[in-house]
């Protein structure tokens, strides 16, 4: 754990940023505070990044949200806490290891029984004066906004909008609470540590205001809509449920059928049924649910039926830690399903990737008639930040369905392995798909020569898939001695760390597509004298994949598997030791 007195290690001077953490029990307003603050900062022209860590329970326990406010974009969590707002007694013990001597603790002494120094702010008392203790958190919101010199109009307007549905009385109380917060701030700013906190608002601020702010689940969902998704079937499972929820809420608007299945087996089979008709279907699940879908994944392979699978990882095995993060299901995804057939696995690194790769997944699944897996994790799903608006002119829904002729054969032995895909009811032909080994028509066969041909047909598609591969992204110098490698959700974290390391000969290679492993991989790795793998799992699964396809051995593995993402400052410290 890196405490806030270790400020030296991160960030470098060029970056001005504050790590603000709010901690309290589940179901007691922490989410509202986070919601309001992030939007207010953004409207105020600052970059915000928010991520949370929470327990698998509906009420009680200790959850915390970290909000990073910065002038240049910082899109990764920090161990260090600059300002901590504890909402109850459990908060300080919960975060003990991350509280340093420079951490400013803002809270109600009475409520939190602090172990260290705290700036006692009587939020509840003030709220009661306004008329209701529920306004306490809003006073805190006002106070924090004020500390960062956000124009008071911004929180006032946003709070009004936010509480509008709750009636005028609540709105008024909240407005007063915000104002009280601003009043408190003018006093607090006399304290030196607080006075130093300001972050210059970057210019042109207009830019940040026009950006969108959303979490990973929303980005996947919007990507799906943009990919022409007609159908989602899923069984709720953290951290994958957000996508089902989002698509359900916009189902009517976008002509989507969103169905909660009785189990994950049903979900994947429904999605395959949907694709069979020409609809574009997806499922969203996590490790345990995906484990149950294995036979269905194999079915997709045999039927050559497209399907898009969103797999949001959490720590396993079994139920594991349902609300935490891990990158432990890579191998399961790589080798999922019995028998042999091609697939694609994308591992988006952030909000932009999540959107564009999910969109692309639908096109590629359709084109190659294969399962495409979008491998994310809890950290990605639950984190959000302001980012450029998605550019719809860059995307296209590519259609690959053919009208059938009378003599249509679903599995005609095409040269590249990809036969025309017809759908029932469009054209004069019949569309037969079969989980048994089948002939070109799609009927069951025991012709063993044909079996070999059909296996070859399915496997040939690997070659085609290669053509559309997404190369890894090299960050840093083109000439390097040491190469840090990562995939998926660690993208921004490693990037931040790299920037801060300021090592000329160290670069970072990030994979957004892990399978098929992109062709340039070996070249990149060969150039390095030393390869360092950074992964959120215990057995370094991606190192194994690299070894398998490039023969290259990773020199160091930096692994974390306690259920949390890497913290930038923590990662920097670890990397410094081995570089």
């Amino acid at each position, binding site marked *: 754990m890196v405490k806030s007195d270790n400020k030296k290690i991160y960030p470098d001077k060029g970056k001005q940023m504050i790590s603000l953490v709010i901690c309290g029990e589940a179901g007691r307003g922490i989410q509202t505070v986070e919601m309001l603050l992030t939007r207010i900062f953004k409207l105020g022209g600052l970059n915000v990044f928010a991520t949370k860590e929470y327990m698998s329970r509906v009420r009680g326990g200790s959850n915390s949200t970290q909000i990073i406010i910065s002038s240049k974009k910082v899109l990764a969590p920090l161990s260090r806490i600059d300002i901590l707002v504890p909402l109850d007694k459990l908060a300080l013990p919960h975060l003990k290891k991350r509280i340093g001597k420079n951490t400013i603790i803002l809270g109600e002494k009475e409520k939190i029984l602090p172990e260290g120094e705290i700036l006692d702010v009587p939020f509840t008392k003030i709220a009661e004066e306004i008329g209701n203790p529920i306004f306490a958190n809003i006073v805190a919101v006002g106070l924090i906004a004020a500390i960062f010199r956000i124009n008071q109009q911004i929180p006032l307007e946003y709070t009004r909008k936010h509480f509008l549905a709750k009636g005028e009385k609540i709105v008024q109380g909240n407005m007063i609470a915000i104002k009280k917060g601003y009043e408190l701030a003018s006093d607090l700013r006399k304290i030196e540590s607080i006075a130093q906190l300001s972050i210059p608002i970057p210019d042109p601020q207009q830019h940040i*205001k*026009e*950006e*969108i*702010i959303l979490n990973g689940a*929303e980005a996947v969902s*919007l990507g799906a*809509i*943009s990919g*022409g998704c*007609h*159908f989602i*079937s899923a069984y709720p499972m953290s951290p994958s449920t957000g996508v089902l929820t989002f698509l359900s809420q*916009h*189902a*009517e*608007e*976008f*002509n*989507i*059928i969103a169905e909660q*299945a*009785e*189990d994950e*087996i*049903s*979900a994947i*089979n*429904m*999605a*395959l*049924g*949907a694709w*069979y*008709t*020409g*609809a574009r*279907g997806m499922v969203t699940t996590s490790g345990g649910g995906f484990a149950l879908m294995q*036979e269905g994944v194999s*079915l997709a392979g045999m*039927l050559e039926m497209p399907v898009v699978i969103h797999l949001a990882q959490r720590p396993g095995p079994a139920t594991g830690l349902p609300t935490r993060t891990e990158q432990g299901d890579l191998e399961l995804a790589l080798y999922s399903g019995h028998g042999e057939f091609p697939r694609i696995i994308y591992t988006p690194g952030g909000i932009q990737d999540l959107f564009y790769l999910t969109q692309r997944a639908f096109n590629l699944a359709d084109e190659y008639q294969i399962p495409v897996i979008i491998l994310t994790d809890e950290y990605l799903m639950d984190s959000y930040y302001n980012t450029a*608006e*998605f550019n*719809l002119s860059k995307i296209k*829904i590519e259609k690959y369905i053919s009208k059938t002729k009378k003599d249509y054969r679903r599995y005609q032995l095409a040269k590249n392995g990809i036969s025309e895909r017809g*759908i*029932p*009811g469009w*054209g*004069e*032909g*019949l*569309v*037969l*798909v*079969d*989980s*048994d080994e089948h002939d070109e028509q799609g*009927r*069951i066969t025991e012709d063993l020569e044909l079996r070999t041909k059909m296996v070859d047909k399915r496997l040939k598609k690997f070659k085609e898939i290669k053509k559309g591969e997404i190369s890894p992204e090299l960050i840093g110098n083109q000439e390097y001695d040491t190469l840090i490698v990562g995939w998926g959700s660690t993208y921004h974290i490693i990037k931040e760390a790299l920037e801060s390391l300021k090592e000329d000969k160290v670069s970072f290679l990030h994979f957004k597509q892990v399978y098929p492993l992109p062709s340039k991989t070996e070249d990149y790795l060969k150039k390095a004298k030393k390869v360092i793998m950074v992964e959120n799992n215990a057995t370094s699964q991606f190192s194994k994949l690299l070894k398998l396809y490039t023969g290259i051995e990773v020199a160091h593995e930096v692994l974390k598997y306690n259920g949390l993402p890497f913290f930038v400052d923590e990662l920097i410290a670890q990397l410094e030791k081995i570089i």
Partner: protein
Amino acid sequence: MENLFDLEEKNIDLAWCPGCGNFGILQALKRAFTELEIKSESLVVVSGIGQAAKTPQYFKTNMFNGLHGRALPVATAIKACNPELTVIAEGGDGDMYGEGGNHFLHAIRRNPNLTNIVHNNMVYGLTKGQASPTSQLGFKTPVQVNGVFLEPFNPLAVAIALNASFVARAFIGDLEQTIEIFKEAIKHKGYALVDIFQPCVSFNKLNTHSWFKEKTFYLKGHDPSDRLAAFEQSIQTEKLPLGIFYKHPGKKTFEEGIKAYEVDKTPIINRMLDREKLRKLIKAKR
């Protein structure tokens, strides 16, 4: 009437044993479709794995021959994505009530407008004669060496308990009546279960053609809208009634419950993404 569902390929080698009840079911289905003037091109038969599940291999139809036990979710999604198709989910007693039991329960709850045909031979045919969920007490097999002692699964009673919209039982020994029941089931709007007794000549020496013949009779004077009476009939064990046990015609189908179909009936597969709406939704994330 000409049968439009025969395959053009002659001499097709049906993988069933001579004398198997599945031949009759195949014939009954082809006749029912023909008489209802359904077109092959707009018919989709979804099946699982087993002897029963091979049926759509042997006539002219669109076919989704999927996994053992999983026909119902596939069929439900097909009907939802393209309600213009006639959809059948077909399989054996092991397929639908064993491996697929959970989907059976929840498909009934969803009430998609499709027909669920279950060849009930009270045995696992394709895997060579183990007990199925509907195997009768005392039925001996290479696995159930001392005879089945589990309560036989009663699909009709369960369907009625779940307030299924159409519940019927047929016996393929009577081709004409079976065709009539199939036709009623296919015409019915909503989920329709037809559990059909089908002798397995190779592995079920207990529930033979003549056993079924003796045990069964057609419901007479029964009011299929009476759920209690239907339940009472369904739990008979001395004699096994045939016919339509229960019908609940007004029930909302799954497709009707889908918001996207409330106003516009165009199958969703034929609709385009509204980019303007999408742009707005994205902008709303500011």
